[in-house]
């Protein structure tokens, strides 16, 4: 008789309301993560008058591509992109090489002063970076590399954290692999080069991502190292806008968007690696 009621109840039974609430909360969380970005993009397409109108419009009534043109010319973006790219590239190369070499040696080789030298690595990790910055600035000045890419790269040529990460990684590789190679008469360097490195791909990727993000997000050093905006990184360049375009919000948002884009695109493509890399470096560190 009451077949429709029974069917209805069965459906309600299969819906787990607890789960539904969980999904809803998560989605609310995601939306609140995205809203600032979305609002930035929407504002970037609006004209100034519309952007500051009350009540505010959500979608731009008229798409002002000119904001992006103006934003693009407000900063020497080509230079900023190039500088940022070069800093990241150079730092990744130098950090990976120095960290993996030192990491392997600390993890697997016995040599005099090993404990003392490793304590240098640990000390650096405990100190806030700004404690080095004034002397680093003086040094860079004496070397004549201020206001240049080399200057931007300077403090990040080596990474104590990178060494630490690689030490942890190499320690986790079974020692039997090395012993076999040693019996074959391989030198330490050959072991490093032919055996250890190929096994280190995920750690090296994680370290690269960490180095890249750190270089990209860095503000204080590029700000003081480079006097001219043409010689700054994207992040420092954007920070200089806070004076001039302070009230031209749409252009400001357009410029911020242009500055964020490269890393966001990379992140979109390599999400898994980014997240795995940061979580990995976080949990191992």
């Amino acid at each position, binding site marked *: 008789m009451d077949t429709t009621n029974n069917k209805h109840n069965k459906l309600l039974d299969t819906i787990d309301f607890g789960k539904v609430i969980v999904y809803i909360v998560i989605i609310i969380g995601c939306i609140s993560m995205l809203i600032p970005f979305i609002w930035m993009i929407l504002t970037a397409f609006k004209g100034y008058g519309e952007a500051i109108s009350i009540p505010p419009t959500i979608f731009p009534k008229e798409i002002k591509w000119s904001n992006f043109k103006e934003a693009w010319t407000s900063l020497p973006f080509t230079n900023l992109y190039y500088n940022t790219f070069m800093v990241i590239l150079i730092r990744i190369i130098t950090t990976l090489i120095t960290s993996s070499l030192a990491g392997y040696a600390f993890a697997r080789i016995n040599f005099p002063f090993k404990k003392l*030298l490793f304590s240098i*690595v640990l000390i650096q990790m405990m100190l806030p970076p700004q404690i080095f*910055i004034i002397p680093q600035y003086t040094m860079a000045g004496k070397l004549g590399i201020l206001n240049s890419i080399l200057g931007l790269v300077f403090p990040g040529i080596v990474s104590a954290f990178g060494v630490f990460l690689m030490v942890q990684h190499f320690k986790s590789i079974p020692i039997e692999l090395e012993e076999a190679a040693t019996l074959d008469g391989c030198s330490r360097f050959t072991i490093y080069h032919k055996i250890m490195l190929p096994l280190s791909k995920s750690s090296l990727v994680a370290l690269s991502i960490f180095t890249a993000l750190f270089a990209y997000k860095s503000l204080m050093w590029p700000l003081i190292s480079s006097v001219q905006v043409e010689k700054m990184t994207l992040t420092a360049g954007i920070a200089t806008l806070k004076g001039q375009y302070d009230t031209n919000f749409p252009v400001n948002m357009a410029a911020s968007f242009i500055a964020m884009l490269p890393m966001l695109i990379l992140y979109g493509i390599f999400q898994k690696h980014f997240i795995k890399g940061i979580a990995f470096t976080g949990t191992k560190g």
Partner: protein
Amino acid sequence: MRRRESDIMWGLLMVSPAIIGLIILNIIPFLNSVSLSFMEHDGLSDPIFVGLDNYKRMLESKEVVRSVGSTLWYALLSVPGGAFFGLVFAVLLNDKIKGKGIFRTVFFSPMVVAPAAIAMIWKWIFNTDFGIINYILSIVGIDKIKWLTTPNMIIPSLAIVTIWSSMGYNLIILLAGLQGIPDHYYEAASIDGASPFRKFFSITVPLVSPMLFFVLVTSMMNAIKQFDLFYVMLGSTSPSASKAQTLLYLFYNYAFRMHEKGYASAIVILAFIILLLITAFQFWYEKKWVHYE
């Protein structure tokens, strides 16, 4: 490990690039900073030794005391907040959730954006007259809040931004910790009739506490070092900003704007000592609440 003769050579050779780099770029600058803190140095002429003058001035300075207060207040607001939301969403995502990958990607996204750019966006959002937050508040009848121009609101505003941007990172770390908790603990608790709350406090929290500890320690370190957000969102433009400066913003001002590098060095040493004390306290307190298997 058998020690071969070439080991000594290889060992030292392989660590030398990194170690030499660290000595030149970090150890020597650190020692320089310490010695600089006892000097007066404008960056151009030679430094002059002034003994403890910088430290005396610092401890007597209202500006520095206020800055320490602002920085600690900022840490107090942003660190637990970021950890809490990270944990909540980590717990929610730990379940069998479809689309976990996408959610994680979204939550983590602020981490790949430079704090300077994030600051620009939020500066606009917090705008007193045209920002979206004040508009939404006006709908529910709350008056405009001068987020970035009222001295007392500055630190909370920065804390909100920090919680928003660090939540994702904390989530990822805590999720990794949660996934190490064996399911059968929860199953056994269910059999015993434990409520979700009981399960959370008796199983989840203790077993995720090492990761939580890591999150709290690293968040605290980042909070004490806060500069980027303050510089971009406030900087030198707003007069009330000077009442809520973070310690490292003060450092930047003295070091590179006012060219008092000696005094600035004393300030950064102070920041370091505060950091050391807080971290030491956290490690001491760790024994009382962090549960290791």
